């Protein structure tokens, strides 16, 4: 139902402002419309309210943590591509998220080339 020319829409869910800011700038640069949420509740609200092509979720957050947020979001909208992020190299929750059906997993700081590749992939095969 979407085509190439359609502007992609992304939601960034992270309690860290630095991360939210960076992803917003980066995605803007890639002509992606970006909304941000600082915790799980706001993310759920946003997904319930509008459509997103891609959602970036930090696995560890205060309040509802990332993994739980992801499961909730997936229940609401299973068609969105979910990208899970973690600042903790040793965190096993990334693997867990993958099993739960996350599309991609990123470790912070991001490998910017991989990010570019990801955007290209999303653009190439919009759901």
């Amino acid at each position, binding site marked *: 139902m979407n085509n190439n020319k359609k502007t992609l829409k992304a939601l960034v869910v992270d*309690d*860290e402002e*630095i*991360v939210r*800011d*960076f992803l917003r*700038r*980066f995605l803007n*640069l890639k002509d992606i419309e970006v909304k941000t949420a600082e915790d799980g509740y706001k993310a759920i609200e946003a997904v319930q309210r509008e459509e997103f092509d891609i959602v970036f979720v930090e696995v*560890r*957050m*205060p*309040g*509802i*943590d990332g993994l739980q947020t992801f499961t909730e979001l997936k229940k609401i909208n299973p068609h969105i591509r979910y990208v899970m992020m973690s*600042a*903790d*190299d*040793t*965190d096993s929750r990334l693997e867990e998220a993958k099993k739960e059906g996350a599309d991609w997993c990123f*470790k*912070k*700081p*991001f490998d*910017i080339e991989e990010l570019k590749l990801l955007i290209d992939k999303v653009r190439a095969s919009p759901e």
Partner: protein
Amino acid sequence: MRQSLKVKFLLYISVLIICAMSISTGVTYISSRDTVNKIIMQQLSQLVTLTANHIAFWINNRKQDLTNWSQQFYQTSLEDRAARQSASLRLKEQNQNYRYYESLNLANAQGEILASSDEKVVGKNIEQRQFFKESLKGNVYLSSAMKSPDTRNPVFIISVPLKRADTVEGVFYGIIDIAAFNDLFIMPIKIGKTGDVYVIAPSGTVIAHPDKSNILNVNVNTYDWGREIMRQKQGFITYAWKDIEKIVFFQEHKDLGWIVAAGAGTNEIFAPVKRLQVINLFITLIFIIVAILSVIILYGHIILRPMHYLMDGIARFGKGELGRRIELATEDEFGSLAEAFNKMAQDLEKTTVSRDELVKENAERKRAEEQLKSAYEQLRATEAQLIQSAKMASLSVLAGGVAHEINNPLTGVLNNVQLIKMEIETKKEFKIEEFKELLDTIEESALRCKRITQSLLDFSMSSRGTLRPLSINEVIEKVVTLIEHELSLQNIAIQKDLPPDLPQVLGDPQLLQQVIFDIITNASRAIQSKSDKKEKKGLIAIKTDYETQKNTVSISISDTGIGIPKENLERIFEPFFTTDESPDQGTGLGLSIAHSIIREHKGNIKAESQAGTGATFRISLPAVLKNTNA
């Protein structure tokens, strides 16, 4: 011990014997002395009475004699010269028969001596003499003792009246030689060697005495005792005469008016008593010696020997001869003691392990003690290591949070730099404000990284073991930096009330960080245990303060966790004490390490809790005064 017992025993017995003997000797002496005294007095008084009566009787006889003899001259005409001569001859003859008369004399009523056994006095006049005057009145008269005017010998005179019908025609008198009288009555009486009898005239003059030189030459009134005799007339008196003490009985003869006294030397009288006393003492001494010897022998036999057996037996038993028994067949207390000992030994033998085993056991115990000691030393030595290990364990807890804390700002640095490069490549026009904003983010992120890594490094650094003045607030800030994010993920907020003008404390920053860290992680666990609902927020409040009166800096860390049951409040600082049963439970060492660290800082740590409302840990540390500068 044995010697002293013996000496004590002997001393006691000897004193007892000596006392008994002394009392008996004393009593014997006094009673025998009294008895002798009584007998002597009786004898003396009898002697005096007898002698006095004898003298009186004799003097009466002389009076009678002279009266009888005077009758012869009734028919004689004394005017006749020849008759006078014949009378003188008769008197001389008479005198020779009765030698105690110095002379026998006949005087007429005018006092002229008409006839005398002593021719020399014939013709003399005795008109003025007392005896003459008395007898002329018709009285038989005994004169007092005097020196004879003719011979100067001591004499007394008995005179009788010469009567024809009722008319006194003259006086007949005999002069009695006191020396002869003395020989008759005084000399024959012997009272020992020093005793004597003597006669005192009413004037106090001694008129008869074994020592003739005293006769008429001594007046007893010149002595105290003499005056006493003259005053009392009858009784006992003791006095010294020529250095010899005498006991004297004296009695006045009523008719004669003379006092007869009989005395005995007290030394002489009591000599037998004294001899008896010496014998008594000698016997006592022998008795004491015999008693002491018997005591020694009896002591040795009855006490020392069985005691020796007992002591020997006990000593051998003590050295390990557990089969040792004491063979003592006496029926006394020692026998009972030996029996009791044997009974005890038997019981002991049954229940006691052998001496060898004891020695072995003792050695083992010593070895164990040494091991324990070295273990303790090792424990002390590894305490610092333990603290370090505990810190490392804490770090592993932190790992996720720390990675998070570093990688997020790192994203802000690295990815933002890459983003700028991308923007430069793709965008023609570049907004300078936007660029500056980005640079600020990068800088801020880099600083955050720096702060985290510094805190981490500081925390993981091992203790230098020295105390230096430091700000407790800084210590708390560093720990909070490390743990804050991790806590926020657990929905725990940290509330800090750290006054900036707090005095410094002397401390080891690494150790104090560990303490704060342990208490905060403990608090976070308590909060986690209270509720698994992550939505519900926990709170850890950290507050520091300066207590002026005590000059201490206090740190209080309160949580809203499950709290600590009252019974555990005192135990939470014990090593390995933990109530946390969750899989990521602590080592159980955190609070005990904290306790030990605070104690080394001369501080104090305690916990307060009210069920269900969380717990508060209070630490106080001595403050370094603000004006003291290192």
